[in-house]
C-alpha cells in the first residue's frame, strides 16, 4: 500500500509538473513534449486505479495519435518562441476584452476545483465499486453500446462534422 502511495505521488508529480510546463514556458515544441509527459503520468494514475484499458487507450489516442499531429503542425508552421506582447506585461485591467472573459472563466474553474477538493472526504465511500467495469473491455463495450448509446452516437456525429469542416476550410485555398 505504501508503495502504491509512492507511485501515486510519482505519477501525480509528472502529471502536474508536465501540465504546468505546457503553459509556463514559451517554446511551443516544449509545450507539446511536456503535455505528452503529462498524459503518460495520467496513464500511470489510471493503472493505479486498476483500469489498464483506459490507461493504454489514453496513450494510444492522445500521446500516440493526436499529439503527434500537434507536433507535426507546430513543426510545419515553424512556430518560434512566443514573446510576451505589451498587453501581456501590463495590468490585467488594461488588457483587451477577451482577456477579461478569460479571467472570469479562470476564476470559475478555480471555484469548481475548490468545490471538488472540498467534497473529497464524502466521495471516498463509493471508490472501488466501478473498478471492474473499467477494466473489463467486454463490459465497457456493452455499456457503451447500450446505456450510453445516445452519447456515443452524438459524439461520432460531432467528430464527423468537425472533419467535414476541416476539409471544407482546407479545400477552399486550393480552388
Amino acid at each position, binding site marked *: 500500500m505504501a508503495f502504491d502511495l509512492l507511485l501515486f505521488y510519482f505519477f501525480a508529480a509528472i502529471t502536474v509538473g508536465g501540465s504546468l510546463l505546457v503553459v509556463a514556458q514559451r517554446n511551443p*515544441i*516544449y509545450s507539446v*513534449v511536456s503535455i*505528452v509527459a503529462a498524459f503518460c503520468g495520467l496513464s500511470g494514475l489510471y493503472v493505479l486505479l486498476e483500469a*489498464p*484499458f483506459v490507461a*493504454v*487507450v489514453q*496513450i*494510444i489516442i492522445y*500521446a*500516440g*495519435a493526436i499529439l*503527434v*499531429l500537434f*507536433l*507535426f503542425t507546430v*513543426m*510545419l508552421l515553424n512556430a518560434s518562441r512566443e514573446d510576451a506582447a505589451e498587453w501581456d506585461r501590463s495590468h490585467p485591467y488594461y488588457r483587451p476584452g477577451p482577456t477579461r472573459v478569460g479571467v472570469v472563466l479562470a476564476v470559475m474553474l478555480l471555484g469548481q476545483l475548490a468545490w471538488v477538493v472540498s467534497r473529497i472526504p464524502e466521495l471516498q465511500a463509493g471508490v472501488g465499486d466501478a473498478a471492474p467495469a473499467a*477494466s473489463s*473491455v467486454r463490459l465497457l463495450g456493452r455499456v457503451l453500446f447500450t446505456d450510453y448509446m445516445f452519447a456515443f452516437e452524438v459524439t461520432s456525429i460531432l467528430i464527423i462534422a468537425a472533419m467535414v469542416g476541416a476539409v471544407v476550410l482546407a479545400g477552399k485555398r486550393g480552388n
Partner: protein
Amino acid sequence: MLETLMWPLRPPQNWWVAYATLVGVIFMALQISAAVMVYFERKVSAWMQQRYGPWLVGPAGVLQPIADIVKLFFKEELQPKAADKLLFSLAPIISVAACFVAFAPVPFGATTTFFGWLDEPLALQIADLNVGVLAFFAVSSLGVYGIVLAGWASNSKYSLLGGLRSSAQMISYELAYGMALATIVLLAGSMSFREIVDAQAGYYFGMIPRWNVFAVFPFGLVAFLLFFTAGVAETNRAPFDFPEAEQELVAGYHTEYSSMRFAMFFMAEYINMVTVSAVAVNLFLGGWHGPFLSPAYGWIWFLIKLAVLLFIYLWLRWTLPRVRYDQLMSLGWKVMLPLATVNLLVVAAGVLAFGL
C-alpha cells in the same frame, strides 16, 4: 573450490531473483540481437549481391559488429551549433526507451521451471498484461516522438524532412496496423498475448496448425500480410524507408547525429524489427507452439519463427526498390486501410454470427 567456481550457475534463491535475472537477460538479449541483425544484414546483402561481406574481423567476420560498436564509442559526439540542446539529446533516449519497453508485454515461451532447476515456475515474459496487445501498440506508437524530435532539434533541412516524413508515414500506417491487431483480438477474444498464443495450440483436421494465419482462411492470412507490411512501414525499413532515404535526405532524421547517439537510433531500428517480428510470431504464427518439441523447449520454435520473419525483413530490403512517396501514401490510405476495415468487419460479423 568447484562450488565457488559454479556459484554464478546455482539456481536463484527465490522467484524475485529469477524474475530480475529474466529481465536482465531480455535486456541484454535485445541489445545483442541488434548486433547480430547488423551482422546478418551485411552478410545477407553481400550474399544477394554476390560479394563476401564482412570477413576480416574474427571467423567469417562475426566480430564485425563488436568492432563497429567500439568504433562508435570512440567517435566524437558532434552537435550542431543551432540545435536545440535539450531535445537533441533527449530524442535518441526516447527512441531507445520506447523500443525496449515495447518488448515488455511480449512472451517468448511457455511457463517453465527449466526442468526443476527453479523452485517456482517462471513465465518467459516480463509483464503478462490483460491488455498486452494494446500496451505494445501504445508504447511502439510513442517511438515516433524520438524520430520527429530528432528531426526538429537538429535544426537542419534534411533532418526536418526526415522527421516530417516519418510522422506522416507512421500515422498513416498505424491505422491498418491497429485494425490487423483488432482482427486477431476478435478471433481470440482476448488482449493478453499469452491467452492468444495458447488459443493457437493444436491442429485443424489433425494436420494444419491452429495458427491465426490459417484461421478463417483467407482472413487470418490477409490480417497477417497487412500487419507485417504495416510493421515494415512502422519500423522505417526498405521499401518504406523514407525517413532516412540516403539518395535524397543524406540520412534523414539522424543526419546530424554521430557516435553513441547515432548508435542508439540504429539500435532502436533493429530492436523494433525484432519486436514487430516477435509480436507477429505470437499473434499469427502460433508463438512457441510447434511439433516435435515439448512445451518446455517451445522457445526454440519461437526463435526459429522469429529468425524466418527477420530474414524476410532483410530479403525485402535487398530485393525491392524504394516506392515513391505518393505511392506510399496511397498504398496506406487507399489500399491497406479499406482492406483492413473490410477484413475486420467480415471477421467481426463471423464472430457474431457463428461464434468462431
